[in-house]
């Protein structure tokens, strides 16, 4: 009894010494987090309660900006719908596309290195160049896609000039850009133990069954990671709106981040833009929370339930 308490006391001392070191080591991270994340976040909240335009002195107006956003703002509703629509399409598209491509690239095919590079290249190209290229493909009057359509006798599709097609068209670009997901999937696929596949093969499982019952469960943590990253990135979408559509036609591609940019740096309503930012933040947080909450139902941990 005596010895146990003695040793546990010693252990506690060691722990507290260790803890001190740990906290000291954490300070830089905390400083960064506080000054680069939390203070700006609080400032955004603070500014969102003012009518600041950057010129005259900010005036405290309580929750007026939020009230205005939810009642009379002509853009925000369309903007939220467009963003979520875009994010869901892009996430679903790029997850399926990149897992599929990753599995093809994981096979022993000739010139595998070359093809891996081919599918990764879009991700490293400069965004501006990519969107200029796609704007030529999508152009409504003389664009390449419409040239092909008219060559085979079909009528023109307006792509990004039509409010019903603009989001799917932009999503397609974002799927095409998903090279980073492919790389992460590839790494994950190479970690799926081949013994499982061999065992299943011996039991007579076909390719689809092995995919469903071995590859997918083993990949589920990677899928979760990619899903999360892709969802957050796509909810924050802004480049296609800036580079291709200016948020149009109408509000059909006026994504939330673009709306915020427009309010802050085109119309210089900084207080209002901060309120919009907080709404974006809330939506992002909600989506992320839902994903995390549901994740333990479908993520398979090889090491068992050690959470």
């Amino acid at each position: 009894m005596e010895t146990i308490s003695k040793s546990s006391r010693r252990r506690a001392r060691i722990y507290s010494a260790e803890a001190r070191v740990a906290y000291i080591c954490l300070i830089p991270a905390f400083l960064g987090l506080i000054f680069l994340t939390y203070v700006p976040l609080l400032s955004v909240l603070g500014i969102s309660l003012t009518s600041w335009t950057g010129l005259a002195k900010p005036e405290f107006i309580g929750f007026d900006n939020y009230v205005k956003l939810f009642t009379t703002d002509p853009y925000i509703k369309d903007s939220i719908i467009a963003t979520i629509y875009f994010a869901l399409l892009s996430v679903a598209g790029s997850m399926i596309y990149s897992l599929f491509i990753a599995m093809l690239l994981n096979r022993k095919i000739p010139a595998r290195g070359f093809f891996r590079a081919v599918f990764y290249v879009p991700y490293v190209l400069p965004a501006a160049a990519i969107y200029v290229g796609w704007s030529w493909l999508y152009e409504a009057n003389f664009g390449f896609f419409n040239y092909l359509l008219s060559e085979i006798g079909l009528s023109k599709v307006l792509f990004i000039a039509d409010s019903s097609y603009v989001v799917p068209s932009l999503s397609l670009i974002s799927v095409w850009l998903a090279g980073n997901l492919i790389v992460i999937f590839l790494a994950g696929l190479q970690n799926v133990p081949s013994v499982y596949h061999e065992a299943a093969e011996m039991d007579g499982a076909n390719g689809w069954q092995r995919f469903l019952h071995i590859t997918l469960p083993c990949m589920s943590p990677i899928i979760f990671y990619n899903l999360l990253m892709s969802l957050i990135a796509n909810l924050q979408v802004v480049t296609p709106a800036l580079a291709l559509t200016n948020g149009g036609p109408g509000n059909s591609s006026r994504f939330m981040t673009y709306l915020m940019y427009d309010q802050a740096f085109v119309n210089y309503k900084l207080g209002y833009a901060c309120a919009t930012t907080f709404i974006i933040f809330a939506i992002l947080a909600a989506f992320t929370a839902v994903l995390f909450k549901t994740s333990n139902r479908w993520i398979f941990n090889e090491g068992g339930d050690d959470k």
Partner: protein
Amino acid sequence: MKARKSIGVGLLSVLLVSSVVGCGNNEKNSASSTPSSSAPSSSASSGGEASKTPEKTDTKKEKVKITYSMWGSAEEGNVTQAVADKFNASQDRIEVEVVAIPWESYMTKLNTQATGGQLPDTGMLKEDGVIQWSSEGMLNDVSAMYEGSDSKPLDSLAYKYQGKTLAYAAANEVLLLYYNKDMFDKAGVAYPPSALDKAWTWDEFVATAKKLTVDKKGKHPGEDGFDKDSIVQYGASVENLPWQLETWALSNGGGFYSADGTEVRIGEDASVEAIQKVADLYLKDHVAPLSVGQTDDGIQRTIIAGTVAMATNGAWNVGTSLNTAKEEGLNYGVAVLPYMKDKVTLNTGGANVVFSQTKHPAESMEWLKWYNSEENNWGLISSGIWMPTLEKWYTDETLTHKWVDNPNFPPYEEYKSAVVDYARSSAARPAAWFYTNHTTDFNTLLGSVLGDVWTGKTTAKDAIAKNLEALKAAHAGNN
């Protein structure tokens, strides 16, 4: 375990408190120091010199230092600085320093400087920012600038709001009709008129555009077998950026605003009908390519791309893009705009302002006045990007020759009639941002409202009726 937690909490709270305190301090500092720190702001970029001046200039008369900000590359800034150096050498009271800021970040930078009380003394300001900045108390009244002067800027180039002259435009611009002469020659159609009294009606314009619109089989709109999906050359394109659309609303007897800028008139039938006519060029007449106002490169997409025979846009295109295309063989001409009921073109031009944070308003105005005499902007004017603002260049034929008779321009007689005379005619009306506030909000919303009108999913009437209250709120600054 408990100890660990409490250390953590302690650390966290210390950090939080210190950050909050630090933050508070900063704010106080910047707030209290604004007035005093703004004094040397004019020479912020040459701070070293500025701090030296008081010591050594006791004997000599001290030169007042002012900064002038402009949009453009560092190179363009050097050109302007060279002009300013001439001014600096011409007198011994004022020293001007030029700061060039890239166009894309120009207004953002100025906004940041305004927040910090660090604005230059004087500078250029984007058209739609002038009245807003003035109503927030950021600009000096410049109505006294041209008192007793022999040549004043064109009256349509003064920014006026509630009876005060806020600024004069740094340059003049008007909207024109550009056309591809080779396409007209090939079709055997007469060129659009460059004289205002011969201006085409809208129907004549559409009829001509039909002759110039050709599908793959060589058919024109309205002919049997014409296929709108295989058009290889369009007849006309009318720029549908919201601010340029006001031309047609005014031309049809309507408008975006009342003449004093207080009322919104875009809901009137005449205004709505004008916008629909522009949309119908694509939807019904099949003479125009589709444009949903997503990019601001109308002339590049039409005349320079060689896909459209006629296109409306601003005079600046002569210098920004058409001169290069001309060297590469484009044979283009300029004409006056067609009209619906009244002959209308809009004129505009970025402003030169004196900021209210300056301590030297008189010196700033003196510099602006000197700088705005066109000899000093000669590079921009002779290339065709800017048109002069002073009246004498439009009235004195020798000066007009000096301005227009050079290879950057279309033939003299044509440009003189379709641009120089046009800009001084009764057709030229100031764009809305010369006399009314919140045009950015209004135009952004209007652009969004009209998005589905260009593709025919809705009509201008329905779209505008549905959003009229929001448009009025935008104009009132309540958006």
